[in-house]
């Protein structure tokens, strides 16, 4: 709030994680102390991987509850309001990891308002840990402030770590952490005085990220299977597997637009990455612009001498020319295929291409859908393509689809001083394959509605998650098998899944949130359907979109296909204006960043009703 006539009574973040599925409720309560009505703003940030599931406002004992609707229908329904500029979008991109939900309402004198926002997400294991990120910016002292996180992990917690960017020596002891074998509770609840920046002043110290990191115990090779209320989830990340050697081709854009800092950061990242190659790996470097000039004609072993030679070469890569992505990637594919055919590369090894680019292809084949087709047919499902999109100008959607079509993933690299670390971090995530062609099998007559159960690779520090529905609701065990290709031998393990007795495991908890396995299954299914709706054949795309929409509505998730519509209380000055919360896609986030770069203050301003992006101008004049 901007006015001192508004008092914030309570800000509470209550997060419950049950088997990686996080359910967070943010509550904020404020009172208008003024003798006139005034606008009160509520802004919260949530991870971009989360789906909003609920939002409500309680104003003068009356509840206004958000409703998840099909996006197109919601748009049509409010077309009039939208066209007259009276509707406000609630969600905006905020930084790399978060999106901001903001709403404002007019509150009568001496009245109070309570906002409650709920969102859910499946925590992803990256580099051996899960992360729960809560961003708190109350902007004022709060009478009751608390962040409470309860983690329930039936596999047992191997460690739990909590820290915050705003924690001073005085605030640090206020973080309470209780960890038992299968449960952790982390709370932080400073008093008003403890929140104060300095004695007697109104500024608050609470401004930043509260981060909890943890991992679970992994004792069995089969992983952990949990059956709850007719749904099951299988977490697979076996311990102590030797890594599989990899054959990696780095396809590096050195076109003109990479000039300056981007080229320099690419060189720095490549030097660090090369240093991390294992001796049994094979690698190649293909710098490209309008011409494609591989460092060597084939992949070579990552011996110390070869790596040193490559590092010397990388130092000399300079920008020039235009961008031929098609030719460069196809050259990489060809090199890997030839290496395998000529037996120069080990049989049991993983093939991958890492493409680093900042821009649109503009020479050779420049039609992006044609490039996707060419790359897909050349790769033929036999290797993984990872794409790193550098900067705001990159066509991220193009890279994202192309990676997903080829069993890889894309990542945006933000143009900033830490771009070198971002590049390196991505490489660390995907550089240590433990298994390839991983197949998780469940009896056909026992389970249905399975999420994806075949994975091209399992990377060190990550985790494979498969969920499904049990045909027989009372079933409490079934056979599970996992197959994969390891370094020296095939990986094969089988075992029995058993239902957990949550009552025994957590005797003191009456209710955690019973349907979490079903919601986890729904979240995962929707995510995979959304991916399929971008990458599959046209009828597959339509089917996947329809299914994802159905499930988003059924489980009340705000996804890119749905909107949450909240109708604000009637305004004295005008008619009702609906508020619409959407889920942003990566492309929309990128667009928003481009705009905010040019319009300072946009991100911190209250929601605007309309925004006009800068458009190109074409003119002719005299001097």
């Amino acid at each position: 709030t901007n006015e001192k006539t508004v008092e914030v009574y309570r800000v509470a973040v209550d997060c419950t994680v049950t088997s990686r599925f996080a359910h967070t409720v943010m509550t904020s309560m404020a009172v208008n102390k003024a003798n006139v009505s005034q606008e009160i703003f509520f802004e919260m940030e949530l991870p971009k991987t989360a789906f909003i599931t609920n939002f409500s406002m309680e104003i003068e004992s009356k509840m206004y509850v958000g409703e998840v609707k099909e996006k197109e229908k919601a748009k049509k329904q409010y077309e009039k309001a939208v066209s007259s500029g009276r509707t406000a979008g609630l969600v905006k991109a905020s930084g790399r990891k978060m999106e901001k939900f903001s709403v404002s309402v007019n509150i009568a004198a001496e009245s109070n308002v309570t906002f409650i926002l709920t969102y859910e997400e499946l925590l992803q294991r990256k580099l051996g840990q899960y992360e729960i990120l809560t961003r708190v910016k109350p902007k004022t002292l709060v009478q009751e402030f608390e962040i409470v996180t309860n983690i329930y992990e039936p596999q047992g917690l191997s460690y739990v770590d909590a820290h915050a960017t705003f924690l001073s020596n005085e605030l640090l002891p206020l973080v309470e952490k209780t960890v038992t074998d299968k449960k952790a509770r982390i709370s932080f609840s400073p008093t008003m005085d403890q929140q104060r920046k300095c004695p007697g002043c109104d500024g608050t110290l609470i401004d930043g990220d509260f981060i909890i990191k943890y991992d679970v115990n992994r004792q069995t090779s089969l992983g952990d299977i949990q059956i709850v209320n007719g749904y099951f989830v299988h977490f697979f990340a076996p311990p102590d597997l030797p890594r599989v050697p990899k054959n990696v081709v780095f396809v590096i854009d050195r076109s003109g637009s990479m000039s300056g800092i981007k080229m320099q950061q690419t060189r720095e990242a490549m030097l660090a990455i090369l240093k991390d190659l294992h001796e049994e790996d094979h690698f190649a470097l293909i710098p490209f612009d309008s011409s494609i000039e591989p460092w060597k004609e084939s992949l070579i072993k990552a011996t110390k001498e070869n790596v040193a030679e490559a590092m010397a070469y990388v130092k000399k890569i300079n920008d020039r020319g235009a961008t031929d992505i098609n030719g460069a990637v196809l050259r990489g594919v060809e090199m890997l295929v030839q290496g395998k055919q000529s037996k120069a590369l080990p049989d049991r090894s993983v093939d991958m291409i890492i493409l680093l680019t900042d821009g649109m292809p503009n020479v050779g084949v420049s039609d992006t859908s044609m490039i996707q087709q060419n790359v897909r047919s050349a790769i033929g499902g036999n290797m993984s393509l990872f794409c790193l999109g550098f900067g705001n100008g990159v066509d991220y959607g193009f890279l994202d689809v192309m990676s997903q079509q080829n069993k890889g993933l894309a990542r945006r690299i933000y143009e900033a001083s830490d771009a070198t670390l971002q590049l390196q971090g991505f490489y660390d995530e995907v550089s240590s394959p433990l298994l390839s062609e991983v197949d998780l099998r469940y009896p056909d007559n026992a389970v249905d509605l399975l999420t994806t159960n075949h994975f091209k690779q399992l990377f060190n520090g990550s985790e494979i998650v498969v969920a499904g529905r049990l045909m027989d609701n009372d079933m409490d065990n079934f056979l599970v098998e996992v197959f994969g290709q390891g370094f020296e031998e095939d990986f094969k393990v089988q075992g029995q899944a058993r239902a957990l007795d949550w009552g025994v495991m957590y005797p003191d908890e009456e209710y955690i949130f019973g349907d979490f396995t079903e919601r986890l299954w729904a979240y995962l299914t929707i995510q995979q359907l959304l991916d399929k709706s971008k990458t599959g054949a046209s009828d597959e795309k339509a089917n996947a979109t329809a299914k994802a929409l159905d499930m988003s509505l059924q489980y009340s998730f705000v996804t890119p296909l749905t909107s949450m519509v909240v109708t604000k209380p009637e305004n004295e000055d005008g008619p009702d204006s609906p508020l619409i919360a959407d889920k942003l896609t990566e492309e929309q986030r990128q667009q928003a960043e481009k705009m905010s770069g040019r319009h300072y203050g946009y991100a911190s301003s209250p929601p605007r009703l309309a925004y006009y992006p800068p458009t190109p101008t074409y003119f002719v004049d005299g001097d």
Partner: protein
Amino acid sequence: PHFMIELPDRDDALCFNINDKPGTIFSLVRDAQSGILVNGQIIGDKKIPPDGKINTYFWRFGIIHKNLGVRLEVNTQDISVFQDGKRIKLLWSDTASLKGPNVDLLVTKDRSLKVTLKDSVKFVILLHKVWEKHPYHRDYLGFYTLDSHLLSPSVHGLLGQFYHGIEYEVTDLRPGEFPEKPDATMFVKGQELNVTRGWQRDFRNDVKNGENVPCWFIHTNGTGLIDGDATDYIVSGLF
């Protein structure tokens, strides 16, 4: 005249000059699908200036929207709108606003004319008044496209060909003839061009002084950046 393609998304701009004999008419925008045509005629200085360089400027624009049946002639003297057999004439000294079913015109006191053709294009024409007794220069016009997103993908012309974006890359920055204007290599439309960093003026916000916009200057009448040759855009009449 100097042509400018400002690309705020890239925080960059491209520019080039096109010059020819005074009296030449160039096609600036041509969209057969939506029936839009913008042609402009250039004029030279009153006499050859001491530096011997003949400057040319646009002094007359002819604009047609066939589908709407609208025709506009804008020159340094006046503005004429023809529709349904009627002619409306406005003077640059007017402060006028004309709202019709198909076309909106707005003439403001800073000698700018804003034209909105229904569901197609929006542009501004600026009149640059030169001291009447200036020994060499005359009044001239500038043409600024404000919104062209409704035009068809086949739109062409010296300006129109850029309405759907342009992909280019600039590399190999090196010292040029003047220290403040370095040279570089531009890759565009499959060609490699030598370009020079410079600036040209955008007069929309300050019709007298303009604002300098840094841009990559493409030499020899935009050769390599524009499709074909500048002479390919010469047309025989204003309409």
